[in-house]
């Protein structure tokens, strides 16, 4: 019996010829990540409870200051300091300070730190993002991270794999975000619970790496352990000149076993949103068009890379944010901000009357710079809209793609972007 990509990576990590779903394995980790909310407890557990004095490999660890940084209050500053000191004491090679990194899940791929065929863990649920680069990547807790930092290995249950095949191509305006929101709407927030989501098909060949990262980013929103894509020319080009280590891509065997295969016609997927209060509460945009908004947020590891900002800027260029609504734009990394500055996107945003922030997780998790109040309605390009995620438990959050978010900021109500701009310029579509 053949193996899926996920099974092959776990088998290699465990030093075994083969593994099958349900097996519990102890596997070597190729790369690990933690941030300002997860490094302080992990560091404390590793040093004080586990009794480890150093980390297994300082070159295979990244630490970002992204969740509550730049520090939103004194307590967050204390967590930032613990994170900084741990990284310094342990000699972490890939430490990203405020103003030099940004959101972990944008920083690691853009820095070429998470590579095909690798086994990657991150103490953050959206660590599944990296799987777009043909690796096994999953979110873990702080005790898990402490174990990995101390030993370079961790226990895993080999997941069953669900295969998602996307036929044909996405239509104009419809983005990777709409596709994954649609899929989660179909299978539910526990539809892939503890399983691997392997994405394939014609539609994926025609989307760039940043859009692919949006798809794997939201695997956790279906409860999945990981999301993974095949290696192809797009992957290779993205990594050329970027990869920090040599790598070996992995493919699923033709006779690999899948628990279930889902087939979708990408051409039939419409622009859509997740309505409050769950990421699987999918609705076509037409159903919610006209919903009045208090805030629009373009940010997060899901949808605030440079291609996302280009689309938002194309919609906003020469237009103004509507009265009665506020638009907050948070780039997902410092590199993204530098590129946005070069391309003049920031000027477009500022002229439109948007608030432009430093790169941080910020408002996405109700941290800072855009936390919602009681009953406020927000359209957000983020990943999760459970009650209280962005602030007050009674705030209403809709999830969408960046072009929809930008168009809706211009009108003040949820709006199809074609009502603001006839067509996206070819170079950003």
């Amino acid at each position, binding site marked *: 019996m053949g193996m899926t990509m996920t099974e092959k990576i776990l088998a290699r990590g465990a030093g075994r010829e083969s593994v099958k779903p349900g097996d519990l394995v102890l596997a070597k980790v190729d790369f690990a990540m933690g941030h300002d909310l997860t490094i302080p407890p992990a560091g404390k557990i590793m040093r004080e409870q586990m009794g480890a004095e150093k980390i297994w490999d300082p070159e295979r660890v990244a630490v970002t200051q992204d969740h509550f940084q730049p520090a939103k209050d004194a307590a967050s500053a204390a967590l930032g300091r613990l994170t900084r000191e741990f990284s310094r004491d342990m000699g972490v090679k890939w430490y990203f300070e405020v103003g030099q990194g940004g959101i972990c899940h944008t920083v690691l791929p853009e820095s070429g730190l998470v590579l095909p065929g690798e086994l990657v863990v991150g103490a953050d649920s959206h660590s599944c993002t990296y799987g777009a680069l043909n690796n096994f990547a999953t979110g873990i*807790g702080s005790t898990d991270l402490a174990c990995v930092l101390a030993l370079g290995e961790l226990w895993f249950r080999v997941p069953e794999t669900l295969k998602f095949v996307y036929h044909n191509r996405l239509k104009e305006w419809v983005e990777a975000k709409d596709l994954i929101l649609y899929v989660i709407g179909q299978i539910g927030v526990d539809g892939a619970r503890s399983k691997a989501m392997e994405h394939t098909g014609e539609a994926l060949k025609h989307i760039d790496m940043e859009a692919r990262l949006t798809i794997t980013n939201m695997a956790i929103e279906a409860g999945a352990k990981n999301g993974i894509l095949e290696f192809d020319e797009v992957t290779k080009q993205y990594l050329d000149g970027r990869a920090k280590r040599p790598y070996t891509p992995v493919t699923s065997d033709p006779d690999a076993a899948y628990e279930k295969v889902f087939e979708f016609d990408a051409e039939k997927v419409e622009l859509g949103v997740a309505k409050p209060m769950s990421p699987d509460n999918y609705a076509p945009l037409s159903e919610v068009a006209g919903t009045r908004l208090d805030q629009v947020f373009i940010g997060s590891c899901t949808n605030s890379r440079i291609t996302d900002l280009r689309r938002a800027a194309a919609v906003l260029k020469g237009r103004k944010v509507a009265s009665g609504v506020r638009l907050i734009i948070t780039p997902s990394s410092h590199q993204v901000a530098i590129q946005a500055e070069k391309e003049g996107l920031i000027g477009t945003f500022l002229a439109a009357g948007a608030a432009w922030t430093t790169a941080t997780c910020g408002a996405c998790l109700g*941290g800072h710079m855009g936390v919602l109040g009681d009953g406020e309605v927000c359209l957000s390009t983020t990943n999760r809209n459970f009650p209280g995620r962005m602030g007050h438990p009674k705030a209403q959050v809709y999830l969408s793609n960046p072009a929809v978010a930008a168009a809706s900021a211009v009108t003040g109500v949820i709006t199809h972007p074609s009502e603001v701009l006839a067509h996206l310029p070819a170079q950003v579509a």
Partner: protein
Amino acid sequence: MSFPKVLRGKAWTFAANIDTDQIIPAKYAIYSLDEKELGKHAMEGVPGHETWASQVAAGDILVAGSNFGCGSSREIAPVAIRGAGISLVIADSYARIFFRNAINMGYPILQSPQAAEAVQEGDELEVDLEDGIVRNFTKGDEYRCEAFPQFMNELLHMGGLVPWVRKRLEERRKAAS
């Protein structure tokens, strides 16, 4: 730390898909290193449960629907529940990171669709952790729990991943010397 054999307590019930932002809103992540403080805010994000933590008596049992603990990877979710005084969580099913985190902490959790379906708030429960049986004194019922793989049971009984890592580090030091 010795693993308990039998636990008794009053049940607090919750619906399906309770996510980590409801279990412990992100704003309390600033208390990541303070279990007691986290405990004061456990389940605060579940509508109608703003003062829930203050009503919990030490030893009470939390019973939830499917996919309990979905959402973020924050280990402060099970830490907050433990900090509130809950001795054990029983759910129809768990989101995987919450499940891992609890096992890694050596915090007893059980999976029982039967119990999740039948138990009502306030029911008096007795749980035999070794046999995986939940007895409901209020209803005179008994529910089976699903067995965990051997390695997870071992981790739970030894007190979680910390002692396991200590042992492994010790083996490595011996091998190196």
